[in-house]
């Protein structure tokens, strides 16, 4: 009954004067709104659970009263309350009071998953609203419904609900609003992009200015560096000057010292002179005394006066002599000193010279002994080299042995078993001929004789014999020819070299090399020969054969399966050119520079000596020739040998 009262209150008590009234109206709204809503699961529940988010004590107490006195759809009402986004699991209705509107967006995802009616209060963003209570003009409370959200919740609502004083939210308006706000955001973003672009430009400009400034700084730094360098140079010059000054000072001091010594000597001499002078003075005094004596004795010695005058004259002369003598003595002393000095320095220089001479002699001696050692070593090296050449020859012969044995044994087999066949077949033929020769013997039975002949013909299969015999003879001939050729090739290869060059034809050498290598390439590698008109010329033939064997053997080894080797010779302006080209694996770029080095090999241990090409190089050099190589991985290798021949 009270609920009805409240509904009437809703419409009558329009101005709200107190918070209690507002709470009562809100409670009444929620309870009545709930009656127009249908939950999909409402059949199975006993009570409707209303959960309040907020701390309005008045509203809470109103709900408590309502829950005790009222029922919705004949179900009791259960009330819970908190101020967080935690929702009890049995909730059917949530009311978020205006003070906690912030929580709505947090609650919404939970609500969306279950059939819960969300009632908000004065919520601004209509997109999130299911049912929103709002304060209208004249202090009235109205409500608005976003039907779309309710439908999404699987909640159906009776249209009559609007009679309670509600409106539907215009969805199109909502869409436009959000579109509008989106547009505004887009415009803002555009404006921001523009300003960002502008900022970028200014940053670029600043960067450019910075770069310029950095360049300036770098230039200035360079200038500074130059300046510092100059300063350093100046300082070095000053240092040098200082050193020079020190040296000069030093020599000056030395000169000063020597001058002091000289001045001291002078002083001593002066002293001596003075002493002599004193002596002279004393003599003078004595003379004066004598003079006075003479004066006093004048009268007495008038006779002696003349003698005395003479004596005075003598004394004065003696005086002059003494002076002269003194000056001569000084000069002599000076002379002696200078002579002594020059003598001393000369002696020093002489001693030095002698020392140097001694040293030079020593160095010379050492050099001589080293020279001897070196020529000894060179001789040894030459010996070793010739040994190496010989052993390399033997080693390549060793490598060839397998092939050569096979090559010889096959034609030998032709001869040996051919002879054997001829022997057996001849026996059969003789037997048959013996029978046939009895044609004139009249004692035998002609019928039996004819039968015998027929039997023997079929026994020895005569028709086969007639075919076999010429074939066998041909086989024997081939065998002999091939054996002879191989033996010739071998002797070509291994003949003992004379010290003088011999006239020989290189084509023969190429042929014998090919013959010895036949087993390694036959039925696998096609050999093409483009041989020009090359005259026989003076050379070391067996050495050149070794060259051909080495290069051809490498070419054959470089071709893994099938391929081609082209040998060309040509004479250009008294120079023989031999080109050997293969379609093998090629030589790596980093190896090309090393292939002529002794002991360099890419073959497995035991397959190559690593000496072949280095010896080849030496042999070509001995012929005043050159050897070049061109190679590309996957395409092949070409060796070009040039040997000058004299125009005889």
């Amino acid at each position, binding site marked *: 009954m009270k609920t009805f009262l409240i509904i009437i209150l809703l419409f009558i008590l329009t101005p709200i004067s107190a918070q209690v009234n507002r709470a009562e109206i809100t409670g009444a709204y929620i309870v009545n709104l709930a009656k127009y809503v249908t939950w999909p699961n409402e059949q199975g529940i006993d009570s409707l659970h209303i959960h309040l988010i907020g701390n309005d004590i008045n509203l809470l107490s109103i709900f408590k009263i309502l829950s005790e006195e009222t029922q919705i759809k004949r179900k009791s009402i259960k009330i819970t309350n908190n101020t967080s986004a935690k929702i009890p699991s049995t909730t059917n209705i949530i009311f978020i009071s205006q003070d906690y509107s912030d929580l709505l967006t947090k609650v919404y995802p939970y609500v969306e998953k279950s059939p819960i009616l969300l009632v908000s209060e004065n919520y601004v963003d209509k997109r999130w609203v299911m049912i929103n209570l709002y304060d209208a003009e004249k202090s009235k409370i109205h409500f608005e419904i976003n039907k779309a959200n309710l439908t999404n919740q699987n909640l159906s609502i009776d249209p009559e609900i609007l009679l309670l004083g509600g409106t539907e939210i215009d969805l199109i308006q909502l869409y436009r609003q959000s579109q509008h706000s989106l547009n505004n955001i887009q415009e803002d973003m555009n404006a921001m992009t523009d300003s960002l672009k502008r900022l970028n430009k200014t940053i670029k400009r600043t960067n450019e200015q910075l770069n310029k400034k950095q360049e300036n700084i770098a230039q200035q730094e360079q200038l500074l560096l130059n300046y510092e360098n100059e300063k350093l140079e100046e300082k070095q010059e000053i240092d040098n000057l200082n050193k020079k000054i020190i040296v000069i000072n030093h020599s000056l001091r030395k000169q000063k010292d020597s001058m002091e010594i000289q001045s001291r000597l002078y002083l001593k001499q002066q002293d001596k002179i003075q002493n002599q002078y004193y002596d002279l003075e004393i003599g003078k005094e004595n003379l004066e005394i004598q003079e006075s004596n003479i004066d006093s004795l004048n009268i007495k010695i008038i006779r002696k006066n003349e003698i005395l005058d003479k004596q005075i004259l003598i004394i004065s002369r003696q005086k002059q002599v003494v002076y002269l003598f003194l000056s001569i003595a000084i000069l002599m002393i000076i002379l002696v000193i200078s002579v002594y000095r020059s003598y001393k320095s000369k002696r020093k220089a002489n001693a030095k010279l002698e020392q140097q001479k001694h040293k030079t002699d020593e160095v010379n001696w050492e050099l001589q002994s080293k020279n001897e050692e070196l020529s000894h070593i060179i001789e040894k090296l030459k010996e070793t080299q010739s040994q190496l050449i010989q052993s390399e020859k033997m080693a390549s012969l060793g490598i060839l042995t*397998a*092939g050569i*044995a*096979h*090559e*010889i*044994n*096959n034609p*030998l*087999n*032709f*001869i*040996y*078993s*051919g002879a*054997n*066949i001829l022997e*057996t*077949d001849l026996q059969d033929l003789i037997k048959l001929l013996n029978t046939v020769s009895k044609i004139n013997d009249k004692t035998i039975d002609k019928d039996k004789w004819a039968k015998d002949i027929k039997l023997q013909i079929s026994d020895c*299969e005569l028709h*086969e014999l007639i075919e*076999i015999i010429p*074939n*066998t003879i041909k*086989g024997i001939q*081939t*065998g002999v020819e091939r054996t002879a050729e191989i033996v010739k090739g071998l002797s070509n290869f291994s003949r003992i070299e004379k010290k003088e060059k011999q006239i020989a034809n290189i084509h023969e050498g190429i042929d014998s090399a090919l013959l010895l290598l036949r*087993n390694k390439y*036959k*039925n*696998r590698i096609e050999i093409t020969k483009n041989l020009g008109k090359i005259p026989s010329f003076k050379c070391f033939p067996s050495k050149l054969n070794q060259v051909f064997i080495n290069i051809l053997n490498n070419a054959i080894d470089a071709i893994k399966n099938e391929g081609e080797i082209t040998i060309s010779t040509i004479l250009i302006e008294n120079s023989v050119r031999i080109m050997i080209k293969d379609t093998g694996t090629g030589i790596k770029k980093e190896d090309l520079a090393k292939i002529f080095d002794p002991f360099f090999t890419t073959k497995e241990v035991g397959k190559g000596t690593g000496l072949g090409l280095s010896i080849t190089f030496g042999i070509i050099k001995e012929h005043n020739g050159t050897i070049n190589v061109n190679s590309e991985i996957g395409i092949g290798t070409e060796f070009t040998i040039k040997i000058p021949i004299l125009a005889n």
Partner: protein
Amino acid sequence: MGNNKPKILYVDDEIINLQLFKATFRRDFNITTALSPIDALEILKKETFQVIITDQKMPGMTGVEFLKIVQGIFPNVPPHRMIVSGYSENEVVQDAYENCQLHKFISKPWNAKELKDAIEDAIQSH
């Protein structure tokens, strides 16, 4: 004629050797020849032999390599296996004795009597 003669397959890359072998032993054996191991393997698909004799040094495949394939096809003797060659490293022959049930290695040039005895010995050995 010759149906009761033992069947022998001889493989060598020298056609003269094939002709000579056939001429030498035509009275004693029923001989089939092949110029390469590949040809020989083709023949072995259709016919069976008491003895297979092969050269060692041949282009493409050595005699021992050929005998290893034969060993795969015929795990047991006959066919008996023999090598006739002008030259061969000892290890290679040893390998053939151990892994291909090689009956005998005979050097070229062959002695007709020695070779015939060896073939007959092989045939009787099983």
